[in-house]
């Protein structure tokens, strides 16, 4: 059975902590930093549950600041 692996890279300094990517992710990969903030004072998004990522791109699609880049790998032997 093929298995899908995904990963995202988030530009945390560009992030404004709007939470839209968190709401859009179907597999609850993302969250906002509860305490830490970036240079501009926003609680930025991070991957709280990275192994669940399927590389669907939903988070990147809705991000208003184009902070997220997406990778997707289909492993046919997994």
């Amino acid at each position, binding site marked *: 059975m093929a298995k899908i692996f995904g990963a995202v890279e988030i530009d945390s300094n560009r992030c404004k902590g709007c939470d839209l990517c968190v709401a859009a992710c179907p597999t609850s990969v993302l969250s906002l930093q509860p305490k830490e903030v970036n240079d501009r004072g926003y609680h930025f998004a991070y991957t709280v549950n990275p192994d669940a990522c399927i*590389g669907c791109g939903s988070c990147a699609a809705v991000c208003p600041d184009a902070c997220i880049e997406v990778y997707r790998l289909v492993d046919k032997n*997994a």
Partner: protein
Amino acid sequence: MTREDIIKDENKVYSRPRLLLDATMHYCPGCSHGVVHKLVAEVLEELGMEDTAIGVAPVGCAVFAYNYIDIDWIEAAHGRAPAVATAVSRLQPDNVVFTYQGDGDLAAIGTAETIHACTRGENIMIIFINNGIYGMTGGQMAPTTLEGMKTSTTPYGRRADINGFPVKISDIAAMLDGTCYVTRQAVHTPAAVRSARKAIRQALINTREKRGTSFVEIVSTCSSGWKLSPVKANKWMEENMFAKYPLGDIKNTEVKK
């Protein structure tokens, strides 16, 4: 499988659009303007229009659009973007000209320019960000503000008997013979973003092919003006805005009936 195995160039399925400049956009967190800028940048690149496109920026929160997308731009006075775009597209017929306007800009002070550009069938794309409010100036009522909607100038909610009814300007644009494509989209979900992207692509192709005016309304949020979080603003938009401003194509002369 490790993160290093997955994060490789050959596995990349989404990158930040090349035509989006490095500048951080000044928009509030979660603002729909950002998502639409991203789509415009993506589609311009995809259609190879980076050297031919000329944008006309409005007065409103998108006043600095020219700082964010790496094409040629002109800044118009409040509401006059379709008139400026008319001149540019007539003088530079080899360029693809579009306006990017808010509802205060397009449907209040600029109503005449909007209607007459659409009536003349100018070969331009009009992107219309309808967030039902004057975002930039502090959340005053716009012509598009819903009945009952609270704004800083309608603190108890818009009342039809005092403030009039919300205007559905895309429906008016569709009645005018010069428009070839009028559609109403949104960018609140991945599916909506895909649909809006397709609409902007269609509108830019129409403009390049000189088919008349293409009018793309994006029903949008203004979380600051609406005084909601971005996620709640999206929900409020779904529950309230879409009833008055239903999504979908209103007119498409390319589709044979």
